[in-house]
């Protein structure tokens, strides 16, 4: 039985994520305290706006969590821009210095799941992670040999320029993500769920888009063996 809720639960279980657990526990306690103080039956209060927590109550719950030192993971750029004090800083790009080499001794700086089988593509890696960068490319044009390195598997951040990329490497999502769907429609070669290590802006790279398309139903070992490589060529 949960002790902080307004009702009993024979089979409780803590939430799987920390913020949900913190918030829902706090709200359950708030509701239980209000019910106890109110004196009316549940059925008399549940739809009463005066009983329901307000936006101010929820602001307090958030403030309490932030006061503990907790900072949130961001997913949308605008969230971090508008409330930088609430979010963790964006992680730096990985460069372990431990990259493996291909058959010709060139550094393998990434792997990913191929969305559809095309030809291998050589081009220049250009990171596209911000609204400002997209606006710049939209205004000035996408350089011809751009292999866009994107950390967003959605289809909206790069929507107006996606068809202008020579190829795409996406550091998230799956081959079924919206970006995967769109690149297939545009016939722009694309790797999804890419893991990169030592790839930098302006690097000349060769990407193995001639690999078979990733099988979304493959087991982990098969999927790992199928991953296409990103090779630094200069």
């Amino acid at each position, binding site marked *: 039985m949960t002790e902080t809720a*307004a*009702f009993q639960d*024979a089979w*409780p*279980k*803590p*939430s*799987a*994520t*920390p*913020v*949900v657990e913190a*918030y*829902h526990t706090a709200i*359950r*306690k708030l*509701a*239980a305290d209000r019910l106890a103080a109110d004196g009316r039956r*549940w*059925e008399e209060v*549940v*739809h009463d706006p005066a009983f*329901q*927590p307000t*936006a101010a109550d*929820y602001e307090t*719950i*958030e403030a309490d969590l932030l006061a503990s030192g907790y900072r949130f*993971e*961001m*997913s*949308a*750029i*605008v*969230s971090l821009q*508008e*409330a930088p004090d*609430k979010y963790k800083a964006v992680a730096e790009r990985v460069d372990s210095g431990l990259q493996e080499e291909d058959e010709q001794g060139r550094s393998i700086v990434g792997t990913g799941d191929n969305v559809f089988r095309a030809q291998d593509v050589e081009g220049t890696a250009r990171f596209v992670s*911000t*609204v400002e960068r997209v606006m710049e490319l*939209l205004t000035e044009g996408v350089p011809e040999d751009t292999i866009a390195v994107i950390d*967003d*598997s*959605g*289809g*909206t951040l790069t*929507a*107006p320029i*996606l068809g202008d990329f020579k190829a795409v490497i996406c550091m998230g*999502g*799956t081959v*079924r*993500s*919206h970006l*995967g*769907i*769109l690149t*297939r*429609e545009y*016939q722009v070669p694309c790797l999804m769920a890419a893991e990169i290590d030592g790839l930098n802006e302006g690097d000349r790279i060769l990407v193995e888009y001639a690999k078979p398309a990733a099988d979304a139903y493959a087991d982990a070992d098969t999927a790992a063996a199928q991953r296409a490589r990103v090779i630094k060529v200069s």
Partner: protein
Amino acid sequence: MPARHTYPELLNANAYLRKASESFFFQCTTRTVQESKLFPVNPYIALSYYNAWYRWPELLRKIDAAMPAEEIGDRARQVGSYVNTITMGLIPQFYLGGRQFLMDMGLLRATDAIDDVLDVLDFGRRVNLSLHRSHAHITPSDAGQRAQIHTARQTAHFEEGAIGVTPGDKLHTAFGRFMATASAYGFLSHCECRLSFNNHGPYKTRGGHEMLVRDMLDLAECDYPWMDGIAAPIEHNNLTVTVVMKDTHFNIVDDWGSFEATPSYDAANLVAVGVYTSDHLSDGYIPLHMDNASELADYLDEVRERMTEATSGMWKMMAGWNRTQMIEAGLLVYSGVTKDLAHFAGVYEQSDWFDIDDKARRFYPLMNDEYGGGAIAELVGLLSLTTQQNSEHHMEKFTGARGEMWTPIPYSLLTDDEWTSTVGPIGPGGTALPAKTALYTTTRGKLTQEENNRLAREFRPTGWDQRHYDDDTWVKSHPHDPRGRALDPAPVAAAPTGA
């Protein structure tokens, strides 16, 4: 006091609820995690569930009173509109998502708002039964992942009308480019969600080929206020494209109107296409520029150029929105999945669908990106919220774990348990987004809200009285009966201009 419902009502409601629960779990875990660096997607999804919880019961009752759910399903089966497989399948999901979140916060019990819950589930069940009447299931997953909502007369018409293409020819090239541009445009106009697209089928066609009927929706100036002006050059609000593919089997057309094919969809296998428009005011599907391949290719190129321009303009506008505006636009796309029901019924009011209920808005302070992501992941993927847990002996259909997505309605309501009836009437609401000012694009031209509703209420499709002959079982034994012919689409002809 016992609730005013019968035991069979609750049995049916809980069976539909559990079917919805399992359908949504399969879809959410086999499609993909929806994310965007531009839009705070999970916060807006979570908030849309609250808006659905507080607003849909009254809105669906209003629609049902003007046109019963099963009649809307009948009408929607004749056109490509926002009343389709994905949007109607989401009726129980988004609504029960709000209920489950509130229960998990200790702000609601399974015995609360019982009349609302039963009304929404009943509406959802009736409209889906009717929409999917031709294959006699309530969801594509029940049909082995096929969404064959069309009758033989419709599929025969689509097949006959499709124009042949070969890779590299003018129409094949134009079609491929158009589909890519329309896809990007649809994801953007719908704030990163896939609701702009819906697929039905597959259907077998001559030569062992398969045909998919693909809807692209809300493309022009429509209900979404953010498309005012920017989408003005787009002539038709809904487009339906038929694609006939060789050497391709569409092995999945699922509950979200998405498809998978074996081998993978490859434009090189495209052998014929058709393009139509339709909506709640059209007499079936209206062919567009299908007199010959060259004319259709020119039309698709023209639409593509207009959509490319509109995509740039819309992206620049959206990139300038603040977080609240981004969340509210996405939230409204989600909680607006049922909005076209009101168009069919002729009772559409912009404020019903594009004001956000203040009771939902009070949750804004909770909706940082991490909470939104965690809450949605737990609710529909991990099934890990405490209110979703059953006994240690329980095994969920797919996971074998004890979590089930949606909590059933307790049967104790029928005896002596306490319960409440409804969340009450729709309360005040608002939005930080600009108000809609443009007209609504329809197949009858650009209309005011009042004109649109009036025409919808007056509209009686040709053959409506014969709709119960729109049934392959009846046609099989009456192949030459004129009652069935009354529903046949008009032959392919020049399309009207939309505006």
